[in-house]
């Protein structure tokens, strides 16, 4: 992750330097635009970060493990998928967690459903999505992604098991 961040910073600085070298006025304008775009989304960013903290504090690994581990069959898959929609964990936490859950006996279908909805469906972030794309598109995108997650889960389950 550190190398990735570093690369991002190096590329940004290079481009920023190039832009400054070519046209100072335009660079200033670009920075202003970036700042405005940031300021625009800042309230939601802050809200989501705090909400994630609250959710994760109550919805820890053990809880998730219990839900996915104890249940089996399609109900377990459905629950796993639903847990994924309300959870906001970064991938570098989610994948090791998933690996751990698999070791402790959870099924591939459940785990895949969880990972898929976790990444593609965001109930918590839907207010931000609506702000950018309107209610209709946000709801439609999330619903289709939710259904698709279960298709992925069963296909992967069949392939990997």
């Amino acid at each position, binding site marked *: 992750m550190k190398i990735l961040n570093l690369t991002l910073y190096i590329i940004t600085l290079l481009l920023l330097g190039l832009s400054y070298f070519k046209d100072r006025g335009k660079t200033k304008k670009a920075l202003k635009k970036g700042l405005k775009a940031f300021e625009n989304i800042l309230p939601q960013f802050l809200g989501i970060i705090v909400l994630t903290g609250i959710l994760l504090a109550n919805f820890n690994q053990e809880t998730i493990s219990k839900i996915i581990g104890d249940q089996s069959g399609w109900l377990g898959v459905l629950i796993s998928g639903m847990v994924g929609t309300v959870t906001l964990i970064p991938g570098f936490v989610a994948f090791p967690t998933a690996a751990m859950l698999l070791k402790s006996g959870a099924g591939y279908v459940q785990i895949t459903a969880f990972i898929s909805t976790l*990444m593609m469906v965001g109930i918590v972030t839907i207010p931000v999505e609506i702000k950018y794309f309107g209610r209709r598109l946000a709801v439609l995108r999330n619903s289709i992604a939710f259904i698709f997650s279960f298709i992925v889960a069963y296909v992967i389950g069949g392939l990997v098991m």
Partner: protein
Amino acid sequence: MKLIRRYKFFITVTASLVILFFINYEAGIKAVEITTFSFKKMILIIPPIFILLGLLDIWVPKATMVKYMGKNSGIKGVLLSLFIGSSAAGPLYGAFPVAAVFMKKGVKFSNIIIFLGACSTTKIPMLLFEVSSLGKKFALSRLGINILGILIMSWMISKLIPKKEIEKIYLNAEKL
């Protein structure tokens, strides 16, 4: 008043955090710890993303974006959207402002949806994590199905959202 309205969501969740302390002190502490942790991660990634966004907005002409990702960009636009989305950093909601600039620059609607799909689930950095924790077979088969799924979903969404609504979304992006 306007400020309060804008930060309504943030104020509400912060108030819930305070309430959590009264209900379950330990969970409250944990929530603050997790919040601080994600805050630090976000702080690190936010400046470059928004600087790049500003540079993109100012320097890349609309005509160029239209040519590569616009209405008649064909397969080239699809592949570019997939690639840019997959190389993005940060969480999905960080991609929303990028999508807004893309819309301003005349990127085709279905390509916007492909970009969002790629951002959400085929990110290359995440793929590396997935391979190392869940294995190559799992990660690559999921990648394959997801790419197919992203394309199908983009097609479906483009068909299901009326043209008027799409125009409204693009108009809204101009204001953001």
